[in-house]
């Protein structure tokens, strides 16, 4: 019993001392790395900077196909998607399934952990 209580106490102490915040920061850092590895060739996080794909600045909550001066496939423009975290997660997981006929040449990010980190990072871009 004592052996179980001690780790729980340490976990509680860790969270109260701000450990949870540090864990969140670590997620953001990993999310930034995931972005650099998976997305940065085609997307920028700078406001108004479109590469082959549109800027991902303020992506969360944005309607699909809404960035001026960016080019989109017709299926994406017609999708009616609003980029909630869930929709982004589904799209990044398998773009071709989420938007059939879309032009993004990306096979998808299989790791749910990495997608969560990426979403945490994208959520800070506003």
């Amino acid at each position, binding site marked *: 019993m004592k052996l179980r209580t001690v780790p729980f106490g340490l976990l509680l102490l860790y969270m109260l001392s701000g450990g949870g915040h540090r864990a969140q920061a670590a997620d953001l850092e990993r999310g930034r*790395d995931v972005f650099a*590895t998976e997305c940065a*060739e085609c997307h920028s996080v700078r406001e108004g*900077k479109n*590469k*082959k794909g549109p800027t991902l600045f303020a992506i969360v909550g944005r309607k699909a196909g809404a960035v001026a001066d960016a*080019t989109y496939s017709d299926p994406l423009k017609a999708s009616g998607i609003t980029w909630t975290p869930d929709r982004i997660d589904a799209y990044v997981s398998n773009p071709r399934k989420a938007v059939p006929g879309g032009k993004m040449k990306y096979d998808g990010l299989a790791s749910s952990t990495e997608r969560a980190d990426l979403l945490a990072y994208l959520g800070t871009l506003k």
Partner: protein
Amino acid sequence: MRSFEPPRRGAAFALSLGPSLRQLRTLALGLVGLVAGLPSAHAVPSFARQTGQDCAACHVGAYGPQLTPYGVKFKIGGYTDSDGKGGKVPISAMIVASFNQTAKNLPEKPEHGSVNRNLAMDEASLFLAGKLSDKIGAFIQATYDGVGRTTALDQADIRAVHTTEIAGKETTFGLSFHNNPGVQDPFNSMTVWGFPYTSSAFGFGMGDAATIINGALEQRVTGLSAYTFWNDLVYAEIGTYRSLPVTMQSRLGLGKADDIGRLGSGTAYWRLALFQDFKKQAFNVGVFGLNTSLQPDRSVPGSNRYNDLGVDASYQFLGTREHVFTANGSYIRERQTRNQMFANGEADNQKGRLNEMRVGASYHFLQTWGATVGRFTTRGTRDASLYSEGYANGSPNTSGYIFQADWTPWGKENSWGAPWANLRLGAQYTMYTRYNGAKSNYDGEGRDAKDNNTLFIFAWTSF
């Protein structure tokens, strides 16, 4: 930018010219670089403007020629990928300038240079590079050679592509019309694209002997190849070549003097590779070959046959692109059947071999600071007549190391001038452990391999 160690024309000529011409070439050893050392380029800022990408998206270290997986796919896609916006003009330009110093003065004073410590504007090039239609793209380079003081057609690669699905997987079919076997290859490990990516016009290259697939036919031929790329995994290509008529070579500014002769009608090029892009890392491994015959004198019957077989591999650690490591390697085994040379007494042996190994590894920090080391060896069977003047022991063997440090301040998303300009400044040192058959006195006049050690400091810009 995509540039590479220039044509080692000396090699093919060593196998095809008569003794008197070979002797002349050997005596002018210091001038070899003038025809064989000119850098050429591939991939230019017009591609960046067309795609909306940074140079760093396609190139390791934000400058050519090493392609990232994205760059590999862009090339296979026929230079047609774009950001979907019109109004892009597929024109670019490039200038390379350098300072060169060899350990010992060149054997002969170059026509346009000094026996040592040469400062030169190596080349200025103009490119038509980019998408011409949804399914046709081109890379065509015209170059003013600032050392040789000539202007000519340089690399050319025109492509038509079509993408469809086979077995539910994306499949690209393409045709490439080009002027140099291997220049159309999308992988960094093919010798055409091997390290060093630029080198001194006054230097000594990798020795005088080289396989025929390694630049000997450059610009003197036209080639047509068909390729396919399935599921971002399997690349296969087959093609054939014909030598350009002498009059056409002259019209293109190449001159008649360096005509390679006539290629046999059965010339075949083939290539098979596996490629994997894991985003954090990528690799390719493959085999390739060129089978051809060459009639050195178009007016006199008689030809020599060359069968080249190569294996190559490449690995890239890309990570977050902060630390990028690459390793490339190739090995070519050439079987020569020297019917014409043997009949004319230019070779003692009717059959012979020439093998080349090229390996290189690079590290780039922040896609800006780079260091590369390369190892090259050329080994062949001895032939006292074929490898006579300028060679020791009747041997073509050459080996050495190349070290390079470079700085590429632009070419990233937030860089000055992006996507209109790029710049690389570098210092390169080539160290020979053996040259044309020996470590010492390879030319019979007291010149050692280490006397050819070359320091090459360059500025390379494109816009």
